[in-house]
């Protein structure tokens, strides 16, 4: 039983990492990973929302009617996002400014809705909380790793501390939009290389966890995955 709980917790770290394996939540991943500190801040904010929404949705799973469950989930998630937004504004104004519009957009982050739909409405409160912690840490790890790469190459520093000390000119393109797509692409290719393509099937499954999957499948035959 204890192993089981541990498995739920560690599932999100690497085996089902929401960003690198399931390829969910691509928008914030690309947008805020320009500086390690922003990546970490975004990751932790999302983790908080994920944990609380998982706990809430799993404890309300018998009360919420099946037909209107998605709007209900969105209200729960939006409430926690607003709380996090206000807390950031009050205590971390710099981070709030840096993340800007991507804070309210946590609401439409498919990781959160995906975990609500895939995990929290089928499992117990404790399991759902653990899943939220695990997935949140996985998201934070991936985001911070990517942000470290981009910050190091793009501005020659790490967590705001200059490392290259003007010896090497930083490649500014890496903190701009094209560098985001490029770094993300290379990281996913690396994961494919390390796992010898085993995760590529999961990338397709990851799409099934998305709340839009049903409509997406109608939109295009198997078009949701790439």
């Amino acid at each position: 039983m204890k192993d089981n709980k541990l498995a739920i917790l560690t599932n999100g770290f690497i085996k089902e990492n929401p960003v690198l394996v399931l390829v969910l939540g691509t928008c914030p991943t690309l947008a805020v990973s320009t500086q390690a500190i922003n990546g970490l801040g975004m990751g932790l904010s999302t983790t908080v929302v994920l944990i609380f929404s998982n706990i809430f949705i799993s404890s309300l799973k018998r009360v919420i009617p099946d037909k209107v469950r998605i709007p209900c989930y969105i209200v729960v998630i939006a409430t926690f996002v607003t709380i996090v937004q206000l807390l950031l504004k009050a205590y971390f104004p710099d981070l709030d400014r840096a993340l800007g519009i991507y804070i309210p957009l946590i609401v439409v982050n498919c990781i959160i809705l995906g975990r609500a739909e895939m995990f929290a409405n089928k499992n117990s409160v404790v399991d759902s909380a653990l899943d939220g912690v695990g997935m949140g840490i996985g998201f934070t790890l991936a985001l911070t790793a990517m942000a470290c790469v981009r910050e190091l190459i793009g501005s020659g520093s790490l967590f705001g501390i200059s490392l290259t000390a003007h010896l090497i000119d930083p490649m500014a393109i890496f903190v701009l939009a094209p560098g985001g797509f490029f770094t993300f692409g290379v990281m996913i290719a690396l994961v494919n290389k390390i796992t010898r393509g085993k995760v590529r099937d999961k990338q397709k499954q990851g799409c099934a966890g998305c709340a839009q999957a049903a409509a997406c499948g109608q939109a295009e035959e198997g078009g949701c995955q790439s």
Partner: protein
Amino acid sequence: MREATMIIMAAVLGNNFVLVKFLGICPFLGVSKKLDSAMGMSIAVVFVMVMSTAATWPIQNLLLEPNGIGYMQTIVFILVIAALVQLVEIAMKKFVPALHRGLGVYLPLITTNCAVLGVCVLNIDEGYGFAQSLLNSFGAGVGFLIAMFLFAGVRGRIESNDYPESFKGIASTLIAASILSLSFMGFAGMIDGIFGM
């Protein structure tokens, strides 16, 4: 007129939602495989973006702000957008069935598209007036359409090429998006140059 052109040009090219601001990446990567579905999706996005701006701007400025509950923005906006999309779908099915056949399947997808919520929140953050907000939303939607159109063409070419095994699937798509995004960076300077900002 000059201001209107500037807002639209900036939203379409310089601040392209997908390639510069990273909003709406999911449909950009997901539905860009075939040109016709990419176009259907994009037209639906333009439509919903303008509609939801027309609904959320008055709500924020006439209802939430005067009553001091501006912080309810996120919750209210997402609910309004979700309800609006449902309403539009029902109305479209009843009154314009031909259009519904074309766009209907894309509408539910758009509710949780971050580009739609993004443009509504951005309009408020930028302090745009009502007309300016509508223009900006329209421009953002057209920018999404252009990015989707270009990318659908690019992806057709990638599929038929031979590249390293590890890059198969989403990795190659992201690298291609990176190159496309690079070309859009050039527009940033262009708009500043034309309008002398």
